């Protein structure tokens, strides 16, 4: 049997079983294949309508992302991609879900919101964690081979 044919059979058998389930359900109206089909369609429509009703207020509460939010998000990601997760070392804090990485991403977002420049945020991190926090550390003559120790990706 070809793959397509087997898929078709699977689909047909699943439709058949779903119709069986609908037909067997106790109904006040006379049952039949046509009736089962409309019930499914009606149910789907009502579920979709309910979803739409539920979705609207939730969306309104969150707010539609503005251009500015998107810019902030892409800046935050760009900065996070330059910073090494010190717990996992071979990942950036953008990739890592270690708790410290999550905290540092929060710091980045907060500092963007506070109007700091990318340079200031990177400097904030290196002042605390050293050049090692930079995923691509700058080469400096005074290095004592610290970066050579770090496993590079």
């Amino acid at each position, binding site marked *: 049997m070809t793959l397509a044919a087997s898929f078709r059979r699977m689909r047909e058998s699943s439709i058949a079983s779903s119709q069986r389930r609908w037909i067997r359900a106790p109904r006040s109206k006379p049952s039949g294949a046509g009736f089962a089909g409309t019930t499914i369609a009606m149910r789907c429509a009502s579920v979709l309508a309910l979803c739409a009703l539920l979705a609207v207020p939730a969306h309104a509460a969150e707010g539609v992302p503005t251009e500015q939010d998107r810019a902030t998000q892409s800046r935050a990601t760009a900065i996070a991609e330059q910073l090494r997760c010190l717990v996992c070392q071979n990942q950036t804090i953008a990739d890592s879900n270690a708790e*410290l990485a999550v905290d540092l991403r929060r*710091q980045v977002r907060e500092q963007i919101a506070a109007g700091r420049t990318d340079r200031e945020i990177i400097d904030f991190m290196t002042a605390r964690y*050293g050049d090692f926090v930079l995923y691509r550390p700058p080469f400096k003559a005074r290095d004592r081979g610290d970066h050579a120790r770090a496993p590079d990706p």
Partner: protein
Amino acid sequence: MNRKLLIPLALFVALVGFLLVGLGLNPREVPSPLVGKPAPDFKLAQLHQPERMLGPTDLKGQVWLLNVWASWCVSCRVEHPLLVELSKSKVVPLVGLNYKDKPNEGLAWLAQHGNPYEVSVVDRDGRVGIDWGVYGVPETFVVDKAGTIRYKHIGPVDAAALEKKILPLVRELQKS
């Protein structure tokens, strides 16, 4: 012997030398840029008396240790008996930074394992930890009388680190 063969041999020996040195290094130990810099300021609530605050400025004029700990931290249990012993000797005040911990769990942990800390302060969301460049627990800092960080120990403090590094430095700083 063929002199040409000596060149790859010398290169090989040099390579082995580098690799041997590399074996002895620990990539997990990231040197702190804060050593030699003023201790980052904070004002945090005390674990046992949440209505009272404490910060590095309150500790000026004495040499003190800041130990970052948490009840969820497994390696903290390794160093804990040593810290309890150190606190009994009264050589140097030990301040605890209860890092990203629930205060009731921190208190229960100290009640169970003993409390070596003069005072512990609560860093609930880890912000002070970030200011101090903490990237793992436990970590231990030596702060001098002027409030400058003089040393950072990463990972659990063991007897060798305490006897050979931390205590000699503390005694030297206490004299000055």
